[in-house]
């Protein structure tokens, strides 16, 4: 097939990012030509401030070297701007007279700094702050002259002013409003910022309107509306940017403030796409990089002819890249009528935090001085999380939410380069920062792939995200609120689950087909999730796909580092008889089990069993009356119990008996993640029920049901769901809670984060208040259990899945032939 021709106009971050995304999807579809007006390869424009401040060199901010273009067979023309598009002939021409034809055209012409058209605006010594050229002009001026005026007290203006100050200039910032960075800050935060910048030596002229720039050969001063004047040798105009629509306009494409595009980033000419600062989407234009990357992803998807993925606009957040100043802002930070505000103000420490709340959801945030929790608030904002259950501590930050074991560590900014961030893979802060800057990483996934940090247990994810945010500033592409299941699709977990039930998808090939999966047979991330979702939706009909299960669930044992397996027989409620113990001991002797251990969940674990031995081990255990303990699965694990009132002098109820009943009801059930239960016979809570997915604490008058706890990486204590009076109610409520979790949680999401995501109130409503709904959940759970409570060990001991446990042998084949 002949390749199509794709031309990219604009060799900047948005355009080249689109190409990168496209190459990931379809490397062979297009011959690609790139035209850039600047003489450089693609560089990280948001890092211009550190370059100006002397904290980085130009070479350090290059994102794609010329070698990258060559390796990907992309033709690059730099320093040659495109001057015209002929849409009829599908051809472009450049300043140097070159012409080229296209099948698809991608416009990423970015924006121009807005230069206020006052007299003298075109004098030498008046610059914008937009590209490497501008930075070089500024650095050059700093070497020759003393005084600088920056017009514009916004993000860009302050970064420019800070940079010039660092280069030894005497800098005055001129701002039209009485609030600095008024698009990102409210009054108190802006006042703190101004005070801090003044301390650093910057001067400010607030509420000053520029009337003229003075000078003859070169700028010598600025005059304001009130008649006052100020001497200067350099004027930096940083009052804003305007989408660069000139080329598109001339080609007859519909433009308003920017080039108008639809949700697939197409302009009014469907062969022409546009991304980045030059576009206007749903009436918004964007000047920050995270939205541009979201656009790039969607646009690439359509260029690759995959046809799914929609861009629906972005919520943005901002950080100021001025060393020593911590500032964060997101969303609607100025309260509207009826909004509530939560404020924490500590003038002595220079800390100010404000959250704007509407209907118990964060609408906006401004933070100054302590911005550690900015990404957390931003996530709560984007996901519209109900904060009612933790709103009295929310201003103290996420580490105040029972993040045991991490607490102060989350303040990554203060850590040294040698501090270990990822305990699983032994990755320290310096390595991560280095990878982010040297490889040009922007997303959590990229950092995981390159450094392995946060790629195992994930408990350091928050710290890695904080490092990303602090290293690349607003360029950090925060994990989108709608998380795709994996790289094979753009659908989220919720969307997939909905599609399974609404479209009645009952097999994986059908699902791949109907949902346009990007890979022929999925990947190790999505297959186990989909297998679970199908199983949970159609317990009677769906045929479990062993090849889509992780090895532990396929072999019904826990794989150990040497490739052997561990075997945990189920002992309901942790109770056992002398005969049970003898049977386990006999198995251990017969198969020469190297190690036996009692588990945290009150079971006995046999270690070091060879895979080939498993069916025979299970046969003996099965004959002694044991079933699988599912210690290896995303499944109901154990019900841990304390002694209870039969023996204990404090016991209020029969906790062991209730534990046995609970385990008999729930064993064999597959879950989104592992699920643990416990029953304590009195509030002394010896069974540690308040760190379980569901814990029962017996009291004299009945039973307290606690949910959403776990030990492990991030300890979370349960929330009290309700109190009930009878054992039968305990069973019904437990089953209903489990079924709600089974039907609605994301795969690999434990109850703790699930309850935090959907809120305790929601779970109470479903399981406690809605009586009819609870009964229905209970019935659906019992139905699914009819099919789930088939002992997998017995089945395999009797010959199921033999191929899984029997290796082939060449010597045997040779002997036979």
């Amino acid at each position, binding site marked *: 097939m002949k390749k199509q021709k794709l031309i990219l106009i604009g060799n900047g971050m948005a355009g080249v990012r689109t190409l990168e995304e496209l190459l990931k999807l379809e490397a062979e579809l297009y011959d690609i030509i790139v035209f850039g007006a600047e003489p450089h390869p693609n560089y990280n424009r948001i890092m211009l401030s550190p370059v100006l401040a002397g904290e980085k060199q130009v070479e350090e901010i290059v994102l794609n070297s010329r070698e990258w273009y060559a390796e990907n067979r992309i033709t690059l023309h730099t320093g040659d701007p495109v001057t015209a598009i002929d849409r009829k002939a599908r051809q472009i021409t450049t300043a140097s007279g070159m012409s080229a034809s296209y099948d698809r055209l991608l416009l990423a012409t970015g924006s121009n700094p807005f230069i206020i058209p006052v007299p003298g605006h075109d004098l030498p010594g008046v610059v914008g702050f937009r590209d490497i050229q501008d930075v070089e002009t500024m650095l050059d001026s700093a070497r020759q002259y003393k005084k600088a005026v920056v017009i514009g007290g916004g993000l860009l203006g302050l970064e420019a002013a800070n940079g010039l100050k660092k280069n030894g200039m005497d800098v005055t910032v001129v701002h039209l409003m009485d609030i600095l960075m008024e698009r990102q800050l409210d009054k108190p935060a802006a006042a703190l910022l101004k005070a801090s910048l003044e301390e650093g030596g910057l001067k400010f002229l607030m509420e000053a309107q520029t009337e003229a720039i003075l000078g003859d050969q070169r700028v010598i001063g600025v005059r304001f509306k009130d008649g006052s004047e100020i001497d200067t040798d350099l004027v930096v105009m940083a009052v804003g940017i305007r989408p660069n629509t000139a080329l598109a306009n001339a080609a007859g494409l519909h433009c308003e403030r920017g080039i108008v595009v639809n949700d697939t980033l197409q302009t009014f000419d469907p062969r022409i796409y546009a991304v980045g600062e030059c576009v206007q989407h749903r009436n918004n234009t964007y000047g920050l990089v995270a939205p541009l990357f979201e656009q790039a992803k969607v646009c690439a998807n359509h260029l690759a002819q995959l046809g799914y993925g929609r861009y629906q606009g972005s919520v943005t957040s901002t950080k100021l890249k001025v060393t020593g100043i911590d500032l964060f802002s997101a969303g609607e930070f100025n309260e509207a009528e009826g909004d509530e505000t939560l404020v924490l103000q500590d003038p002595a420490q220079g800390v100010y935090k404000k959250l704007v709340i509407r209907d118990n959801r964060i609408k906006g945030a401004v933070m100054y001085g302590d911005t550690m929790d900015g990404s957390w608030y931003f996530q709560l904002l984007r996901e519209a999380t109900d904060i009612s259950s933790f709103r009295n501590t929310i201003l103290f930050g996420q580490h105040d939410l029972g993040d045991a074991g991490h607490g102060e560590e989350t303040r990554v900014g203060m850590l040294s380069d040698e501090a270990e961030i990822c305990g699983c893979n032994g990755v320290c802060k310096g390595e991560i920062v280095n990878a982010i800057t040297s490889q040009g990483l922007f997303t959590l996934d990229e950092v995981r792939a390159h450094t392995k940090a946060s790629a195992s247990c994930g408990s350091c994810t928050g710290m890695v995200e904080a490092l990303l945010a602090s290293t690349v500033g607003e360029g950090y592409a925060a994990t989108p609120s709608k998380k795709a299941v994996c790289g094979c699709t753009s659908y989220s977990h919720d969307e997939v689950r909905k599609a399974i039930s609404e479209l009645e998808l009952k097999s994986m090939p059908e699902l791949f087909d109907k949902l346009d999966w990007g890979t022929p*047979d999925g990947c190790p991330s999505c297959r186990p999730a989909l297998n679970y979702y199908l199983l949970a939706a159609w317990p009677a009909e769906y045929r479990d796909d062993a090849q*889509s299960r992780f*090895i532990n669930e396929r072999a019904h044992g826990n794989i150990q580092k040497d490739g052997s397996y561990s075997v945990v027989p189920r002992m309901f409620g942790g109770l056992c008889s002398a005969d049970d113990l003898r049977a386990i001991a006999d198995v251990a002797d017969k198969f020469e089990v190297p190690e036996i251990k009692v588990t945290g969940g009150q079971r006995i674990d046999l270690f070091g069993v060879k895979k080939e031995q498993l069916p025979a081990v299970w046969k003996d255990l099965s004959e002694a009356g044991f079933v699988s303990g599912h210690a290896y699965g995303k499944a109901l694990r154990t019900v841990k119990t304390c002694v209870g009132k039969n023996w204990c002098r404090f016991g209020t109820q029969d906790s062991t008996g209730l534990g046995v009943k609970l385990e008999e009801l729930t064993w064999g059930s597959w879950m989104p993640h592992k699920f643990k239960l416990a029953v304590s016979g009195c509030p002394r809570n010896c069974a540690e029920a308040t760190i379980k997915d569901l814990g029962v604490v017996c009291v004299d008058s009945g039973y307290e049901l606690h949910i959403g706890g776990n030990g492990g990486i991030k300890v979370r204590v349960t929330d009290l769901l309700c109190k009930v009076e009878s054992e039968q109610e305990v069973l019904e409520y437990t089953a209903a809670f489990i079924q709600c979790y089974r039907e609605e949680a994301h795969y690999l999401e434990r109850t703790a984060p699930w309850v935090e995501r959907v809120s305790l109130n929601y779970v109470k409503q479903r399981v406690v208040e809605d009586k009819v709904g609870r009964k229905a959940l209970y019935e659906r759970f019992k139905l699914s259990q009819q099919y789930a409570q088939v002992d997998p060990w017995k089945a395999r001991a009797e010959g199921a899945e033999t191929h899984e446990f029997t290796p082939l042998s060449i010597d045997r084949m040779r002997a036979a032939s």
Partner: protein
Amino acid sequence: MNEWIPVTKLEEIPRLGARKLQAGDLDIALFRTGSDEVFALRDRCPHRGGPLSQGIVHGDAVTCPLHNWKIDLQSGEVQGPDQGCVHSFAVRIEEGVVYLDVASLESAA
């Protein structure tokens, strides 16, 4: 010189799955893809020695069950940003029977 010997029937390997094949002291993993191609690699991940035959097969790759390294079935090469290579062996299928080139085992031993 090739020396092809039959090792199993295609249907004995689950689709999108694997079988372990013992050749003396050498463990080999036989993989069957979604499109019924069969590949043979040494059953040992270059990272920490995980048994690749126990991993999840997807596309033309297998992911190691121990730490999720992704290995190309055709070349045995570890996929991007991780690095390494697993020894691969020649296989062919004829009338539903899978043959392995035992001559290629010598070089791995």
